[in-house]
């Protein structure tokens, strides 16, 4: 009888609960609370939070195990069936979908099917401001190296500044997979905090008269040189040509940008490929998001997450975000020194990828200073180009450090 009770105690997980486990539960509950009740990026934070909870259930074996446990002595990976048999479903999903880097490009395809290049095509010059906002990525890379991170780790940390979840995850998978959990959490948490970070940085760096720069009045004063007579045709040709050229220049950005542009193409063709666009932006992206969130959350076991590096990632990620916003604002200010047609520096602040939240936040901010100053479509131009910019930055980092 006593043996049965002893086995029962062993079967239950109580003996394996330590303070680390409890702390990870608290972190999981906080993420779930933020996602469910505060509605901060609920589509990501809820699966990630639940993944953290699953990974830290004692004895459940749902946490992602270290690479060395799924490799043979010669360094090659075990088969997925072996991984599933030895380490359970979560490791099977992680090594099949995350480690191979499949999910972020699939999500990018859905993002492409939801993206409208129209505002950017109407204001092409503003696309350049999406580039300046990538400075946060590279400057935090530099700072992280000084802090003691290795180059691949520092690059994964810096990419948080691109404010693009799938890009951050893709880069981290390629460069520093052991940091995937904390980096994904930091990236999505700061993206959820865009409504706080952009106004804070903008108010710190911009004068009142800059907030009041009226983009539509500027357009009337200095009208564009040529109209777009065939917007639909342009929108169909543009992703095809751009995809080919970018892939030739930065091949390592092709998995992300190629899928983004493909998703956009099937959306722009119209009803003939409408079902593909619907699938890409609906069921496929939603399925990918579920597995991405759960498995990324499951990487956050107490042994991995409770380390000094996590704190560095959280601080560094915030810096990367703030520097990116500041970089965009300063670039517009610099441009305004020389240009007749002034641009509202908030357009530079939205060079972050967080589409369309960054644009909405910047638009609301401009409207506070002038109720007729609707800058949404201008911000969307730099915002969408920011997605391209951060994917290119990721491609550069993977090429050099991967």
């Amino acid at each position, binding site marked *: 009888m006593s043996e049965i009770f002893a086995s029962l105690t062993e079967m239950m997980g109580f003996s394996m609960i330590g303070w680390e486990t409890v702390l990870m539960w608290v972190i999981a509950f906080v993420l779930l609370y933020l996602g469910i009740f505060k509605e901060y990026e609920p589509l990501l934070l809820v699966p990630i939070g639940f993944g953290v909870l699953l990974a830290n259930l004692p004895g459940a074996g749902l946490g992602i195990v270290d690479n060395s446990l799924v490799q043979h002595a010669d360094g090659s990976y075990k088969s997925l069936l072996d991984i599933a048999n030895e380490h359970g479903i979560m490791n099977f999903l992680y090594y099949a979908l995350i480690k191979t880097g499949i999910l972020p490009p699939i999500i990018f395809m859905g993002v492409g099917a939801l993206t409208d290049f129209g505002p*950017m095509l109407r204001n092409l010059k503003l696309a350049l401001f999406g580039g300046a906002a990538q400075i946060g990525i590279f400057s935090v890379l530099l700072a992280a190296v000084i802090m003691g991170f290795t180059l691949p780790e520092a690059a994964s940390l810096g990419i948080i500044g691109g404010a693009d979840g799938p890009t951050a995850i893709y880069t981290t998978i390629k460069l520093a997979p052991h940091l995937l959990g904390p980096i994904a959490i930091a990236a999505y948490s700061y993206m959820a905090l865009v409504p706080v970070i952009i106004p804070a940085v903008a108010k710190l760096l911009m004068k009142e008269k800059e907030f009041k720069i009226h983009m539509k009045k500027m357009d009337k004063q200095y009208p564009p040189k040529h109209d777009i007579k065939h917007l639909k045709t342009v929108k169909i*040709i543009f992703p095809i040509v751009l995809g080919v050229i970018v892939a030739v220049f930065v091949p390592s950005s092709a998995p992300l940008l190629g899928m983004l542009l493909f998703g956009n193409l099937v959306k722009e063709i119209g009803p003939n490929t409408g079902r593909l666009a619907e699938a890409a932006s609906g069921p496929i992206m939603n399925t990918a998001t579920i597995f991405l969130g759960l498995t990324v959350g499951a990487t956050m076991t107490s042994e991995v997450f409770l380390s000094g590096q996590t704190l560095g990632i959280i601080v560094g990620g915030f810096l990367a975000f703030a520097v990116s916003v500041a970089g965009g604002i300063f670039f517009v200010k610099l441009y305004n020194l020389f240009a007749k047609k002034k641009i509202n520096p908030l357009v530079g602040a939205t060079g972050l990828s967080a589409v369309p939240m960054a644009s909405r936040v910047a638009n609301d901010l401009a409207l506070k200073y002038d109720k007729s100053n609707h800058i949404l479509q201008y911000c969307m131009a730099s915002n969408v180009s920011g997605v391209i910019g951060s994917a290119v930055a990721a491609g550069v980092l993977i090429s050099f450090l991967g």
Partner: protein
Amino acid sequence: MENLNTALGLLVVGMVTVFIILCLVVVIGNLVIRLTNRFIPVAGPAAGTSGNGDAAGKRTHSKKLAVIVAAVDVVTHGQGNVESIERK
């Protein structure tokens, strides 16, 4: 120190590459807009109204028909088709 130099190099190379690609975005965008403006004829309303009234009516009708067929296709996920359209 070596890592720091590499990081500095990456900063320069990365930012230059990002700007080159975004400049290409601007150039490609402008090129596509100019080429389509130049080589694709504009089917504006003036062309319809200046010609035969009956032909213009047919053109409008075919456009409406295309829109209805597309809408049915999207709503029914490609399962439905339009057999006839009647005005009430």
